């Protein structure tokens, strides 16, 4: 499998995962599950709320960051690292 095809495959998988996370977040917002989780704070189970919030944001951030990289790869954009070139100029 060529590098570009591999990136395309990873892009599709990542898109599906992000889509599922988005669907989950919207669904929990509509079904008031987020309210239930928010109420955990007053019920003394705030650690669950914090874990869910931080976990959701970190996972989304990481997946989106990788997804964007894959999009650039599929588009054929090549990164040049600043350390080996004049990229880090003042």
């Amino acid at each position: 499998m060529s590098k570009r095809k591999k990136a395309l495959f990873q892009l599709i998988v990542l898109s599906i995962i992000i889509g599922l996370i988005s669907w989950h977040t919207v669904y929990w917002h509509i079904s008031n599950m987020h309210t239930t989780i928010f109420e955990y704070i007053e019920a003394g189970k705030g650690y669950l709320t914090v874990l869910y919030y931080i976990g959701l944001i970190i996972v989304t951030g990481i997946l989106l960051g990788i997804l964007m990289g894959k999009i650039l790869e599929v588009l054929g954009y090549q990164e040049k690292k600043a350390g080996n070139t004049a990229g880090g100029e003042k």
Partner: protein
Amino acid sequence: MISFPIIPGVEISLLLLIFLGFAVGVIKGFVGVGGGFLVTPALIIIGLPANFAAGTSLMWVVGSSIIGSLRHRELGNIDLKLGVIIIVSAMGGIELGVRLLNMVRDMGVAEEVVLTVSIVILLSVGTYMLCEALKRKAELDRMVKGDEKLPPPAAGLTSLSQKLQSLNIPPMIHLTRAKITISLWLIIIIGFFTGVLAGLMGVGGGFIMVPSMVYLLGITSFVAVGTDMFQIIFSGCYGALRHAMSGNVEIFTAFVMVLASGVGVQLGALATKYARGVSMRFVLGIAIMFAVIGSILKLLFFILPVDTAWLSTSSLVITFGGAALVLVLILWLFTIGVSYRRGHHVPDWAVSLVARED
């Protein structure tokens, strides 16, 4: 419009939220600052209560910083060793800064002290940055006119950073990506001091951290941007955690904004490859000066005894006007940079802002 069961009576436009996430993402990706200074007031304006705006904006800062850091890592803009040392030393400073803040709050003068400190420091940093960037641009313009080759990376931008780098206080460490060798103690002191200011001023500290890394440590502008974004993940996480425990986070809003900033942060980070470091310092200097004007108006609002609600509104208008200008500048630099790379004609005065050899 979306409503929030945990905040009754509040409705926010989804499109506005998406646009906000994208726009602040572009600025964040290019300039490297956390973006909380823009997102918090923006969320207040579009209807979130202040405590939710602060907590939600920090949650967004964490997500968007992760996205930006992944891109800056690909671009080779993150010095991991420097980032880790700064995170550790800044944490101690932030704790001291928060204690100082609590102390002045107990004395009943928190807003006045925090705003005055912010104005003095940001005004000094912003003025220095703009003057230096203008001076550097004039030098580069002269080189462009004389058909000289523009200079490659050089260690030590200022005489102060050169002096600091020459101080031989063991242990000396070499920062591969930043391409400098410097005493560990100097990084710890700068990280700690920046942390104190960040804790006291109640912001992530990017406005102070990036200029400190450039002018005191002498590292290149975009490595400073990338490394700062990396360290913001951790300091932002700490703040977001505390806010989440206090019930100040509206997670759906934060999630939508993180999704929206995905593209914006990429665009901003990519723009760093099409612009010279002097452009970034120029743009950051402008953003800082707008933040200073906003803070001055806010300070006047607190200290003037008469009814001055318009000052508070003006402060928000200035903050957003500045953000819009910075956004347009970045997109313009990106467009000009791409045109220059493709060999298209760009105005002579703009060449020094985008001409790069890589």
